[in-house]
Structures are given as C-alpha cells and as structure tokens.
C-alpha cells in the first residue's frame, strides 16, 4: 500500500518535473515537450492501473490550480481550452500503454513498451482531436490537420519510452511493475 502510493505520487511528480524541461524546437517551430513522455512512462513502467492513477493524481493537481503542465499552464482553463482533449486523454493513454506492456510479455521489453507507448500516443491524439474539434467547432479531420506537425515528435517519444523502460527493467527489475 505505502509502496503503491509512493510510486504513484513520485511518478505524478515526474510528469510535472518533465514539464519543466524546456521544449525542443523541431524545424517549422513545432515544440516538443517531455511531458507526454512522462505520461507514457507512467503506463509502461507502473502498468495500467497504477500508471493511470499517477496521471489522474497529476491532473487533479493541475485542475486544483498548480502550474504543472508544460509551459507553466494549469488551472481549470486548460480543460475548456483547445488542447483540453489532450489533457483529458492523458490517463487513457497511460492506461492503454500500461495494458499493452503488461499483456505483451514475449520478446524484448523495449519493443513491447515502445509499441505500447505508440498506442498510448494514438489514444492521446484521438482524445486531443475530438476535444479540439468540439472547442474550435471543426470536423475531426480538420482538427487532425492542425496537430499532424506534432506526430513525428511523439513517435520519437514512443521510441524513447521503449528504450527507457527496457533499461529500467534491467536496472530495477522489481520496480518495473508492468512486468513484475
């Protein structure tokens, strides 16, 4: 019980701390932030249930008014903003990433965690695009065009999530709960 709470809280803090890392600019001025990498890692390392709880705890603190989203954003305004769908999709993304890492046990961890993180990213985009189309009153296809520039960045993050999870599994096999 204590271990679960500590892991969930520390990974929620990890998502917040990764949000403080300055964004890397891709060509064309598209920013890549490390925050969604933290969300994917919650799923691939902690597993579906604890990973989702960690993300929910992080979001609760964001909604309560702490500036923990990347760029120092936070508060209730982010839900109704154009990127609110992505924020609401965070827990679902962590859940899917965790579920796939837990279930797919054959083969290297890097592969299953990487694919799991990519699937989580796809779920994140589904939520984000629906949210954007509601707020901006556009069709989902039109909203999807607005976010295509971010897809390469998230593909890179899925690969990194796979590699990091696999290295963590080698360093602390007992702590990677999605495989423990």
């Amino acid at each position, binding site marked *: 019980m204590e271990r679960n709470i500590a892991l969930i809280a520390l990974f929620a803090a990890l998502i917040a701390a990764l949000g403080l890392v300055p964004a890397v600019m891709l060509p064309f001025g598209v920013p890549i932030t490390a925050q969604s990498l933290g969300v994917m890692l919650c799923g691939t390392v902690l597993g579906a249930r604890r990973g989702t709880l960690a993300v929910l*705890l992080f979001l609760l603190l964001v909604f*309560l008014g702490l500036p923990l989203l990347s760029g120092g954003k936070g508060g209730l305004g982010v839900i109704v903003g*154009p990127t609110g769908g992505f924020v609401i999709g965070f827990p679902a993304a962590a859940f899917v990433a965790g579920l796939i890492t837990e279930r797919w046990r054959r083969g290297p961890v890097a592969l299953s965690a990487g694919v799991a993180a990519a699937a989580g990213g796809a779920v994140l985009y589904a939520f984000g695009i629906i949210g954007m189309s509601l707020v901006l009153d556009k069709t989902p296809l039109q909203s999807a065009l607005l976010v295509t520039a971010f897809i390469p960045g998230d593909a890179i993050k899925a690969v990194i999530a796979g590699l990091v999870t696999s290295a963590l599994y080698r360093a602390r096999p007992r702590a990677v709960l999605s495989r423990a």
Partner: protein
Amino acid sequence: MISLTSPVETRAHRWPAGAKLAALCIATMALFALDSVAGQGAAFAVMLALYAAPGAVFLRSGVARLRMLWPFLAVIVIWHLATATPAQGAVIALRLVTAVGLANLVTMTTRLSDMVDVVRWLAAPLRRVGLNTRALELGIALVIRFTPKLAAKGAALGQAWRARSSRRPGWRIVLPFTLIALDDAEHVADALKARGGI
C-alpha cells in the same frame, strides 16, 4: 510551490469554492449552447468586467494568462475569413476566450487549500462506502512536496552532463531521471511504513 491563485486579494477569494465551481460549470455549458455573436459578445464583456473589477494588476495578469490562446485564435480567424463565415468564426473565437477566461478566473480567486477542501468533500461518499481517502490526501501532499525536489535533481543531472560533455543533454538524461523517481519512491515507501503506515 507557487500556485496560480492571484496574490491580489479579491472579494471572490472569500466566496465558497464549491459555489464558484458550480457556477463555472453552468456558465461553460451556457456558453457552448449559445450561438449568437451578440450573446457571445455580451458574455465576453461580462468576463472582461469581472477581470477589471479587482483593479489593473489583476486584469493584466489575467490577460497575460489568456495570451497562450493566440495561435488558435489566429487559425480560427484565417479559417473563417477564407471560408467567408465571419459570424461563425466570431462566435467560436469569443466562446473560446470567454470559457478559458472564466475558468482561469475561478483558479485565480480560489486558494489551493480551499480547492483541496472541495476534493475532500467530493470524496466523502467514498469514505462512507468504506474506502480510505487518506491515500488520496497523502498523494496530493507527496506530489506537491516532491515535484520541486525532483525538478532540482533533474537540474543537477543536467549540470553533471554539461560538466562532462560539450553537447546538450538530450533524451539520455530521461533514464537516470526516471531511475531517481523510482528509487525515491522506494525510500518514501520505507519512510511511510516506518512512521506507522497508512
């Protein structure tokens, strides 16, 4: 850690947080149901008046927080000028700014402790069913405590990297960073158990 609550003391700081949140829900639903430019314009004007009432400092910090919306407003303006539907574009743009503005207003005028009280109140039915909500409250406290701590450790990792390499620390730093979070969690769990557990 600094929360987004405004240091400018307003009358709304003393209003009950639950009432403000309920009013915000109703106002947001009304905004999304309203489809006329005049109605959205009026709501926008009310929102600005609410920001202006506590004074210039409050208004300026409130407007600064809305500045992050400009790329989306630019897209809406260009889109609706190109498709010759300016009225629809005005409704969408005004609604976006008003909805985010009102939500930020609640965040700016409600202290973190009052918000946590609302969470505790919302969790009360769970306690009655027999669930332990102390875990939730402890989790909130732990995240608030450990986010600056972890961020400082991450900054130290970055400096250690720079001391050894001329290149900037890239994604490689994520692994030791996550490892720190995992190890810290084990220590925190031991400390919680040593103090009698939950």
